[in-house]
């Protein structure tokens, strides 16, 4: 493998890993804040216990999320120095803003929340968990603005002297249509993740029969959040697809393995072959008009085929292969979408049980809900594969090729070594984090603190 392949593999591996933890912390952050708000309003002791119970899971997630985020920031300079040198003027700004405006907020108030239980007035302490949640969501906004610029660059001019893009309208970075939909999609996906984690833990605890009243409350909270949020995530995701189809037609045509332009276009539930060497796949169950609807919002919309876009790009950018990996595009899109339907069905099943007041004793549902915890992670990963693989071969759509972004001064051996180091380290971290998370998720609720003593801080 070349330096380019290894650098891409390293970035993909570390990003996917980082994003296993990010949505948990954003989603669970808001849910924990809701629990503490509930306790603050009602004074019900089990809500305090639950806040601290889920807060501990949140903090384990944040610990891994933060340290793996560092690797992402450093990698732009280490592996992608030609990219950083070229686009730092535009791309660096949202990253610097993220640190100043969001990450300081999240990290500082996390310390205050953990250690401030016995030091801060209850109302102020409640505000700190909300600031942690808001800081995390704000952080994601800046990162998504930077990422969206790679999908659809806006707000810049090319400096004629250096040929490099220069920022000329920062507002455009935050009104980028890809950003607006992409960011909302990420926040909704994070809430889905947080809700499913909370649902799985609650279901496990209900099955075990410990503190049934308390964990019924969190199962209900998770379900009430989950159903509207997964629906919204699907709708926004489909809007995002339309937007990306406009600016990155390869991404959408690739997701359907659509080699020839079609109008109206059907959507295949499954298909066999359809790669570069066999452009006429065997579609299994084709839903008429559905692709037109998904990609253009019109019943009879036209979807440009891969061949047509390729011809257009060759004229525009010169000879080359502008088609992303179709297998990844086609299947990542389907894994994401199909699992979303599964999650929606689980959510509706849970709501129905809740309505019939049978949630506490529904053992079959509990078993399914526990295993459903893997679904959001598969969906999140598939979603990122879809959007990032669909951008290839560009590192910034239309501006710079990924192959032109790697560091010229770094050897293949160096990247290979670093990849091995991170693989080993991340594997060890995953084992430890997983063991700890499951151990803490299976713990019994700690006894409520006596009414007349101060609530102890969560110390190290």
């Amino acid at each position, binding site marked *: 493998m070349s330096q380019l392949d290894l650098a891409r593999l390293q970035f993909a591996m570390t990003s996917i890993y980082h994003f296993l933890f990010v949505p948990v912390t954003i989603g669970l952050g808001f849910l924990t804040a809701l629990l503490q708000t509930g306790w603050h309003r009602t004074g019900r002791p089990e809500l305090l216990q639950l806040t601290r119970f889920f807060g501990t899971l949140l903090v384990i997630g944040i610990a891994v999320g933060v*340290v793996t985020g560092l690797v992402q920031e450093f990698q*732009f300079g*280490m592996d992608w120095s030609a990219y950083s040198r070229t686009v*730092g003027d535009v791309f660096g700004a949202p990253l*610097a803003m993220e640190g100043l405006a969001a990450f300081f907020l999240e990290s500082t108030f996390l310390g205050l929340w953990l250690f401030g239980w016995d030091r801060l007035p209850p109302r102020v302490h409640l505000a700190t968990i909300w600031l942690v949640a808001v800081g995390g969501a704000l952080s994601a906004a800046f990162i998504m603005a930077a990422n969206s610029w790679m999908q659809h660059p806006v707000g810049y001019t090319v400096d004629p002297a250096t040929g490099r893009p220069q920022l000329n309208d920062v507002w455009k970075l935050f009104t980028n249509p890809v950003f607006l939909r992409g960011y909302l999609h990420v926040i909704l996906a994070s809430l889905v993740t947080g809700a499913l984690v909370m649902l799985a833990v609650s279901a496990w605890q209900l099955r075990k029969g410990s503190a049934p009243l308390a964990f019924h409350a969190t199962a209900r909270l998770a379900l009430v959040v989950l159903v509207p949020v997964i629906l919204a995530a699907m709708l926004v995701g489909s809007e995002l697809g339309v937007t990306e189809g406009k600016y990155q037609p390869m991404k959408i045509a690739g997701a359907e393995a659509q080699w020839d332009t079609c109008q109206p276009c059907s959507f295949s539930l499954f298909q066999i072959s359809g790669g570069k060497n066999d452009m006429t796949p065997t579609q299994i169950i084709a839903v008429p008009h559905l692709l037109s609807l998904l990609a253009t919002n019109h019943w009879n919309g036209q979807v440009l085929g891969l061949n047509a876009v390729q011809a257009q790009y060759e004229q525009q950018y010169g000879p080359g292969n502008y088609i992303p990996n179709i297998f990844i595009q086609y299947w990542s899109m389907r894994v994401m979408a199909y699992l979303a339907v599964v999650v929606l069905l689980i959510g509706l099943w849970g709501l129905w049980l809740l309505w019939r007041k049978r949630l506490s004793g529904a053992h079959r549902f509990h078993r399914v809900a526990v295993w459903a915890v893997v679904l959001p992670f598969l969906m999140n990963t598939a979603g990122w594969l879809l959007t990032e693989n669909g951008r290839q071969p560009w590192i910034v759509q239309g501006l710079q090729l990924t192959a032109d972004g790697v560091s010229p001064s770094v050897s293949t051996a160096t990247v290979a070594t670093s990849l091995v180091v991170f693989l080993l380290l991340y594997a060890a971290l995953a084992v430890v984090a997983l063991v700890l998370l499951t151990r803490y998720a299976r713990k019994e609720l700690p006894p409520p603190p006596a009414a007349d003593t101060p609530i102890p801080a969560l110390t*190290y």
Partner: protein
Amino acid sequence: MALATFWFIVTAALWTGFFVLEGFDLGVGMLHTFVSREEPGRRAAINTIGPLWDGNEVWLIVAAAAMFAAFPAWYATMFSGFYPALILLLVGLIVRGVSFEFRGKSDSPRWIRTWDALLTTGSLLVPLLIGIALGDLLHGVPIDQSQEFTGGLGDLFSGYAVFAGITLVLLCLLHGATFITLKTTGEVHDRALWLARRIAPFTILAVLVFQPWTHSVAGGGVLPDVLELVTMLAALAAGWLLAERHEGWAFVATTVVIGTTILSFFADLYPRLMVSSTNPAFDLTVHNSASGAYALKVMSVVAIVFFPLVLAYQGWTYHVFRLRISAEQFDVPEAGRD
């Protein structure tokens, strides 16, 4: 390009803030097993920085992001050139960051010993490697006409750069030991003070050598300037204040020492960002590596709005957690752990 100079100052301020704040966190990380033989004492030491270290580490993240945004070429050349060292730095930061969270999550002595060792090693690697990297910026590494690093791993370990790393480790050790002294009571406090007084002579010696050496590497001769003189005097003062048991003032002194060491280093570096040992004409400077005027202006507005805010709420955090901590608070193994 007044804005580029302003962003050089911002970057210098961020690195200074990082070492002033995270400096004692790193020191505590290196020393937490030395201030007590028992678990309650070690937990007391770690919990002096418990609510603070995460917020302090953000200074590093923002410093790197500021370099990326304001001086993309600096960020690109430095981070790709120092690749192997940065891998090791990241490993140090990762194991250190998670060990705070993980070490208390089981009562098994082997588990705790493992994370103690990782916390200590990580806390040592971070100032050592950042010190070497900063030293390299001023000492110079092979950089060609197109601003690309052309050297190998060996070019990163000049005598000056290695000494810069050692100096930063010693600075963090003294700063951390003084911090534990200031923030604890009882046996932990006494041992931390004892340690601080033993570390002080080494730190003072390192500073007395490092400051003139930096001045001379920068091309200004061995005679230190005012800022460097302040560092050297503050180091001597810290040693004296520790001997006299003026703990609060001693911490003020170590803060001044570590802060002015970084500030004077960047003052010596200016207007260069990264010296080329190949040819002075290939130096990366504030003038040939900065982002455009518009990007710098936007970020200046963001910095001017948010910096005071960050300082305000971080300052408030220090006020909230101003009380001293004792080992007795952690006598019960499960105290405060859910």
